[in-house]
């Protein structure tokens, strides 16, 4: 035990004596370890962000688009019934038993004037159920009602960004804004939701009754999509099937005809997004892992130089009774200590960098203790792996040859 401790002390001394060289040698490991941790942290941060957004969207959300998604490779083109009307949404609302909220969505966009300034944004026409469906909450005012939808009332609910731009620091309810020259009364302001997975500002939006947007702003009868909420998560598939049969009947499709709409749900979309980000995490981690191996090769290189340089020292140690294993342990522990020091500095650097990313950029980082432990353990194994060859080379020297070496 005491002997091992002494050998470790010898290794430490040699590291301290060659401070600059030790630091440069460790640099490869430092960069490798911190790169692995930061990359994985960024990847896991974006996964966490996506998971959060799934929760904020409502996991029971079903989205129905007009148009054909798949039809055996042959596109059917834009058929006569290839669009939704308010009637489709109404039918789902009336007939579906596994769906609780339904909202048509009519998308428009344009210049909004109000509070003495103007802003270009998106205007979504929806039903009152939409806000419940997508977990929107009010900061000021109130939501519009079914009655408002029926009479095409020109009322608007502002996203937080719009309210801030047009009426900074005040409650804008009761104010009038002009959307593409049509006056609307502001009846509410939504609470902030922040950016979505794609980095778009979700609060840069105005909501108005679907009929108002459809007839007063767009002047047409087709809606863009339908959002519906299943009554529970485990009824998702059944609810989707129900919506499908209702729409097929409404669109008078025959037995063999393909659907002229696409039904998807939020979980599928976010699953795809999170699996993409998981792949990215893996890829980033792997690239960073390569740099860790390059760092290990750096250690091997320096250790080989060190063995050659200290051949006489090895000869002296052998001549006074050191065993081959003593020499092996001495050089191996030097390599392992070097790479572990690199590992520790790398971890600290990674904590620093990820803190900076978290606080000063839009990137979210999540550092899990497991990955820190893995990176540290891996850096230790890199030391053993790449230190072994030089150490064995030193240990196998013949005392006489080593002593004669100049």
């Amino acid at each position, binding site marked *: 035990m005491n*002997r091992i401790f*002494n*050998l470790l002390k010898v290794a430490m001394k040699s590291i301290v*004596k060659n401070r600059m060289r030790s630091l440069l040698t460790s640099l490869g490991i430092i960069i490798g370890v911190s790169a692995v941790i930061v990359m994985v942290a960024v990847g896991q941060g974006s996964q966490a962000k996506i998971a959060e957004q799934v929760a904020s969207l409502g996991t029971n959300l079903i989205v129905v688009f007009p148009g054909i998604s798949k039809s055996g490779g042959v596109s059917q083109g834009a058929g006569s019934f290839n669009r939704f009307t308010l009637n489709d949404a109404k039918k789902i609302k009336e007939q579906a038993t596994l769906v609780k909220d339904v909202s048509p969505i009519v998308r428009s966009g344009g210049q909004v004037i109000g509070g003495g300034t103007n802003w270009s944004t998106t205007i979504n026409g929806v039903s009152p159920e939409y806000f419940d469906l997508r977990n929107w909450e009010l900061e000021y005012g109130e939501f519009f009602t079914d009655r408002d939808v029926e009479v095409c009332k020109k009322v608007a609910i502002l996203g937080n960004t719009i309210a801030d731009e047009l009426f900074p620091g005040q409650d804008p309810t009761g104010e009038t804004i002009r959307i593409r020259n049509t006056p609307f009364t502001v009846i509410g302001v939504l609470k902030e939701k922040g950016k979505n997975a794609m980095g778009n500002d979700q609060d840069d939006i105005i909501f108005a009754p679907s009929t108002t947007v459809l007839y007063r702003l767009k002047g047409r009868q087709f809606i863009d999509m339908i959002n519906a909420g299943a009554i529970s998560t485990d009824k998702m598939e059944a609810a989707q099937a129900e919506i499908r049969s209702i729409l097929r009947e409404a669109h008078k499709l025959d037995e063999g005809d393909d659907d002229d709409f696409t039904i998807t749900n939020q979980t599928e979309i976010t699953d795809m997004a999170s699996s993409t980000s998981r792949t990215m995490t893996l890829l980033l981690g792997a690239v960073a892992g390569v740099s860790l191996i390059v760092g290990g090769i750096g250690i091997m290189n320096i250790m080989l130089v060190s063995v050659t340089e200290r051949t*006489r*020292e090895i*000869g*002296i*140690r*052998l*001549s*006074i*009774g*050191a*065993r*081959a*294993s*003593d020499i092996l342990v001495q050089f191996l522990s030097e390599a392992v200590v070097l790479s572990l020091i690199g590992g520790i500095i790398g971890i600290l650097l990674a904590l620093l960098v990820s803190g900076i990313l978290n606080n000063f950029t839009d990137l979210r980082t999540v550092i899990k203790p497991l990955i820190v432990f893995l990176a540290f353990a891996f850096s230790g194994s890199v030391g053993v792996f790449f230190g072994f060859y030089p150490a064995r080379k030193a240990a196998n020297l*013949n*005392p*006489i040859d080593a*002593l004669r070496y100049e």
Partner: protein
Amino acid sequence: MENVENVIVTKKLTKVYQMGAVRVHALKGIDMTVRRGEFVAIMGASGSGKSTLMNMLGCLDQPTAGDYFLDGKNVNSLDRNEYAEIRNQKIGFVFQGFNLLARTTALENVELPLMYDRLGRIKEPHKAAKSALERVGLADRMDHLPNQLSGGQQQRVAVARALVTQPAILMADEPTGNLDSLNSIEIFGLFQTLNQEGITIVMVTHERDFADYAERIIEMRDGRIRRD
């Protein structure tokens, strides 16, 4: 053979070097015996095989043929680790070039063999190293680095390192080869004192003047003992 009074007994010790296609017979059957307490000088011209013999005796190199009994034990059949242990426990070796670790103090240099002492024969390494340095008269130079010491002092540190394990025998290969005559006298004087204190010494030298310090001279030529 088991006579422990004989510290060294060799039987037809032979060493052949393979230098490319040429086989060089460095030792051609050496029979010699060193008794406990003797002070033996091995002399000979360069190339006579005296250094090769010294490396065999010091267990730094292995003979091609023949037997070597050290302290009553046949060391020819040993593996690398046992060789290392013999070097550590039984032999104190002093080199021509001192062979001290640079950037390491005199005291740490002397302590070095004890670091590899697996038997734990020496109980207090630090104390043992100090008293070995005192024995060679360097009590006031313990914390000096080799490059802060004169050649003679460095060689005395090397002698202290050789003595610290209380070996059966002290071996020296041209211990004064790198020293001026004043320092050489100092080292031989030290050897004589140590011998009088009961330590067995075998040394190689090519200087006849200093060989006289020894009580027995073995002369070598062409890998054979010519005169004993």
